[in-house]
């Protein structure tokens, strides 16, 4: 029952996404062909990447303002450092423990790479390797919050730690 629910939500979300892409590319012309192409694309996407988690769309949408604010912060921070004479760089590495599933960990890495001062470099044994631009600036404080947001978007419940 739960699995079917995940399947149908994924079908709905992906139809919405891919249908939206078709509509914006064609300017709402050729809708019959668009419907066919969208259906095919959704079928292919569900085959290649079966849904495993119940994605909560409104939580993803609610996350967008934070993401954009973080992108702006990240860009401004890096621009200020690039133009300032001494750049104030103190690069270092962090290992972030996370129990997010594989796909979500990649999403977290991609997002962190656009947030201020952090850059993901893949993961090892479930730990995300994060490069920090300035170890004194407290960039890493934002990481748990991002991970938590992504976990709630995909409806992932953290395993209880002993």
């Amino acid at each position, binding site marked *: 029952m739960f699995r079917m629910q995940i399947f149908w939500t994924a079908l709905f979300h992906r139809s919405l996404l891919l249908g939206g892409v078709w509509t914006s590319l064609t300017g709402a012309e050729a809708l019959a062909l668009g419907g066919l192409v969208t259906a095919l694309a959704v079928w292919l996407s569900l085959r290649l990447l079966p849904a495993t988690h119940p994605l909560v769309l409104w939580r993803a949408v609610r996350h967008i303002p934070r993401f954009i604010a973080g992108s702006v912060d990240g860009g401004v921070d890096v621009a200020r450092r690039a133009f300032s004479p001494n*750049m104030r760089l103190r690069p270092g590495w962090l290992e972030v423990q996370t129990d997010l599933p594989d796909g979500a960990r990649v999403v977290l890495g991609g997002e962190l790479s*656009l947030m201020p001062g952090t850059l993901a*470099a893949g993961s090892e044994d479930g730990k995300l390797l994060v490069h920090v631009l300035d170890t004194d600036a407290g960039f890493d404080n934002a990481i748990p919050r991002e991970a938590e947001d992504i976990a709630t978007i995909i409806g992932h419940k953290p395993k209880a730690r002993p």
Partner: protein
Amino acid sequence: MADIATYVLTGLGLVFFIAGTVGLIRFPDQFSRLHALTKGDNLGLGFIALGVAFQTETWAQVAMLLLIWGLALLAAGTVSQLVARAAVSESQKP
């Protein structure tokens, strides 16, 4: 009015693209350089898309600009991770 918004926003976008490039040249190691490229270009493209959006005539064109920015974001986040990962495993080689 719309023209002024376009000038200001695309101008800002260019500043961030230049910042990304300056960072790529000035920053000391390959990981710091990746920071500059991904974050600078992401914001630069965002401002340019926003600026161009003031010249559009239909909502479909706005949607297309959003799509372009979204896809570029996705690519930036993914590619920077791949490049960083490759650089890590390269530097760990004996």
